[in-house]
């Protein structure tokens, strides 16, 4: 085993939150930091210059974690066995320098103020008995107002393109009227809108809804950020999600945080290296991480602070695998809290329309080049008369329609078969004239949805896989029905020639891609009796271990998580930079 010189901070993963910690902590301190990244080095140039290859990136998952080495098992409930994800399905965790943010879709949200005070708000507005007993939703340990400065800093460092709807409590026309107050607008104007998005906007306005442009972590114009990175604007090329951006218009660690972090020369990323476990001493304090490099050699990197900055599922597993005499069930799990409140995202596109003779140019643009409505997200509407709590954002089909993944399913509901002469004639005519309404909705936490270590399956390094126990419940089925009805109303107002609607939500499927927004499992809270970490992601029972990312969410809201993941990381970075090393190993307050 090769033992390295100690550093101040070591992170498991070289993705978004690790690069944020490095870029915010290192320049004004003399601290040293190392990140252990399982994937390879990659940069805008030359690595993304010639990557518009659907088969390689969409169908063969060139930028995703290597499933041959590590997978995750799933079962719908405790009464049946869990089986591994043998080929990519429900979610697509990324790998490589910069992590999943290199190939994200780039919707950049703030959660609503009521999403933070979740249980308190719902009980106050609808009564203490409104939340079902099995639903283990809880308040975040911090408020929207406390997080607002960090959302603001994040958006300006990223150069987010969007239209504000609420600046210091003043409503701004054209923005999201339901958003929490922001201290200033977005740094860049919204991205251009596509033809189908404009059809959606007109219909939504006629229904007295409030469409607004999607806030995007993609530059709508040339931009020099506060770090001094000069970046180009979006080319609307149509190869965005699951691709690295060839002009660096899509914000990622590569475009934004890695350059200032690496410029300190006190930051090192060790690529193609897989962390086996967080090591602890006899007192249960973390001492560093043990990892295997690309040549199969074992290394140990000692550090004062260990941060698990990987994907949600890896962060949960990193804690569970760190079993020792001091922590027999793993770090953070002294009170059985790790794996609890595992949540996901109800992401569906149940309503489709067909417009004879229309072409919408769906193959251009990206996932952010359409408007959307939040009239039915969060608690933006009165839930007194509906049979669920929560909500979701409604959006029209966006850009980046690629042929391989769409031809086989696009006409479901319009043609009897997805092959044969009738299908061929239809797909030839309608590949660019079918669009729909989708929603991305909340996933409440339940006692029966959780993660632990699998008893049967091991990864390529001989360690147990993480086991997910998860399924939808009545609240989500009711929410699905309601949001589908609202989406149907909007689509009908867009005057399609034909429509097809999937009216009911089936059981959760591990085999079909829905969303990479796996959340919870290492949740933050107000005390060790309701959570694994405090509001900084600092583990209650092992305070020199921090966790970042969406694993910290007590439950998931109806938004993409990256904006909130980033804001939380900004807040944690500030606390580590300004306060942690005054009293290392003590809980931050």
């Amino acid at each position: 085993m090769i033992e390295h010189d100690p550093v101040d901070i070591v992170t498991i993963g070289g993705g978004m939150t690790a690069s944020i910690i490095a870029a915010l902590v290192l320049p004004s301190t003399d601290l040293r930091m190392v990140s252990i990244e399982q994937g390879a080095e990659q940069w805008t140039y030359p690595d993304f210059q010639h990557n518009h290859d659907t088969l390689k990136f969409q169908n063969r998952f060139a930028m995703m974690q290597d499933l041959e080495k590590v997978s995750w098992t799933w079962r719908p409930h405790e009464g049946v066995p869990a089986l591994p994800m043998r080929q990519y399905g429900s979610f697509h965790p990324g790998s490589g320098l910069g992590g999943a943010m290199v190939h994200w879709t780039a919707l950049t949200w703030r959660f609503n103020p009521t999403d933070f005070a979740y249980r308190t708000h719902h009980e106050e507005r609808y009564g203490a008995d409104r939340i079902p007993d099995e639903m283990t939703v809880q308040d975040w340990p911090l408020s929207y107002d406390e997080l607002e400065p960090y959302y603001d800093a994040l958006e300006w460092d990223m150069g987010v393109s969007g239209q504000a709807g609420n600046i210091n409590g003043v409503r701004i026309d054209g923005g999201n009227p339901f958003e929490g107050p922001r201290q200033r607008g977005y740094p860049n104007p919204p991205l251009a809108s596509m033809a189908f998005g404009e059809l959606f906007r007109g219909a939504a306005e006629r229904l007295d809804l409030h469409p607004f442009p999607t806030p995007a972590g993609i530059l709508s114009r040339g931009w020099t950020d506060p770090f001094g990175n000069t970046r180009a604007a979006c080319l609307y090329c149509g190869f965005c999600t699951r691709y690295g951006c060839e002009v660096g218009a899509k914000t990622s660690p590569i475009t934004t945080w890695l350059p200032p972090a690496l410029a300190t020369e006190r930051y090192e990323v060790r690529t193609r290296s897989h962390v086996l476990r967080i090591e602890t001493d006899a007192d249960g304090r973390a001492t560093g991480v043990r990892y295997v490099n690309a040549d199969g050699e074992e290394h140990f990197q000692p550090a004062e602070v260990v941060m698990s900055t990987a994907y949600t599922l890896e962060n949960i597993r990193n804690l569970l695998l760190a079993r020792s005499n001091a922590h027999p069930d793993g770090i953070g799990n002294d009170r059985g809290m790790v794996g609890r409140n595992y949540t996901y995202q109800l992401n569906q596109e149940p309503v489709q329309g067909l417009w004879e003779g229309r072409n919408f140019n769906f193959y251009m643009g990206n996932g952010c080049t359409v408007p959307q409505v939040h009239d039915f997200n969060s608690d933006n509407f009165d839930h007194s008369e509906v049979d669920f709590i929560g909500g979701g954002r409604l959006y029209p089909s966006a850009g980046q329609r690629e042929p391989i993944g769409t031809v086989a399913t696009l006409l479901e509901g319009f043609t009897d078969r997805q092959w044969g002469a009738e299908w061929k004639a239809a797909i030839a005519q309608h590949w660019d004239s079918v669009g729909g309404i989708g929603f991305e909705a909340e996933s409440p936490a339940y006692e029966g949805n959780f993660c632990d270590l699998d008893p049967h399956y091991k990864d390529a390094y001989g360690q147990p896989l993480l086991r997910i126990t998860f399924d939808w419940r009545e609240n989500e089925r009711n929410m699905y029905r309601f949001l589908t009805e609202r989406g149907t109303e909007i689509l009908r107002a867009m005057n399609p020639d034909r429509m097809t609607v999937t009216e009911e939500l089936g059981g959760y499927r591990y085999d079909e891609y829905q969303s990479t927004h796996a959340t919870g499992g290492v949740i933050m809270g107000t005390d060790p009796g309701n959570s694994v970490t405090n509001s900084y992601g600092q583990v209650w029972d092992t305070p020199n271990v921090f966790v970042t990312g969406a694993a910290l969410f007590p439950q998931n809201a109806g938004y993409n998580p990256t904006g909130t993941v980033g804001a939380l990381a900004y807040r944690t970075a500030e606390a580590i930079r300004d306060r942690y090393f005054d009293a290392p190993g003590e809980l931050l307050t």
Partner: protein
Amino acid sequence: MSEPTSSEGGLSRRAFLATGAAAGGLVLVGVAAPWATGSHEEHDGQGEPPPRFFTDAERVTVAAIVERLVPGSAGDPGAREAGVVDYIDRKLGAGGFAEPTFIDGPFVEVVEEGSTATPSGPLVVARSELYRYGYQSEGTPQRTYREGLEALDRFAQSQFDGPFHQLGEDDRDALLTVLDDIQQTSEGGDDQGTGASNEATGPEGGGEREGAARDAFGELSPGQFFSTLHADTMEGMFSDPSYGGNQDMVGWTLIGFPGPQRSYSPGEMLGGTRKRPQPHDHLPPMNPDRPDDAAREALEQARRGVKDG
């Protein structure tokens, strides 16, 4: 790190593409050497042709399937004309799985509805729930094809007294429809299939034929065989021509996709484009005025600190 893909050789590719459709058409009449029909590897004039998987007989059967999934003719190319058989042959010939796959056991034990047999291990899932877990087969794609094509011929023989490739279009469609229905049923779909399927399966009804299909396929899943073929056909029809299918970009032309482009304007997003379809290797290089070494330095600051661990 990876180098940008060269855009050289584009002309020779285009010249080759023009011959692709005709070459694909030879498949059905049978040609001795497996790769004599697909000359596309010769475009760069270097290296061995990619390894192939299918026997001559298997190629004939696969062609007889894919030309029903996406029917075509010389003036209106379908899967056979697009080179889909070559695409699948190359994909399988590369060995193993084309996409990352977790292949370690143990493997699931599937129980049929109403079965009273005692399971031998802890990982038992009802047939009706299996689809929710995704791919769980112990077999390889190569085995799915090798054994599935044999099973398809057994199924064809049982229904129409001939191997699949000798059947007429309607009979082949009827058999594929049965497999498609089995696949849809396995995903919680309607047992009766769609109206079209009842019609296509004729007076005997879907149930009897589905039983015959299950008998012919035995341990293999007829639904999985169909979905594998269907997915591979769509990949071969609509992926970049460099993978062997979508010859002359006939798949992209069919649906009006202009292939990979560098950019679109906000005006094009609203009003459409006149950009003509092009394959991936016709994409112009970025920053063509800069020699490679200088370009990286100009575009990126030095990135000291990132290296393999």
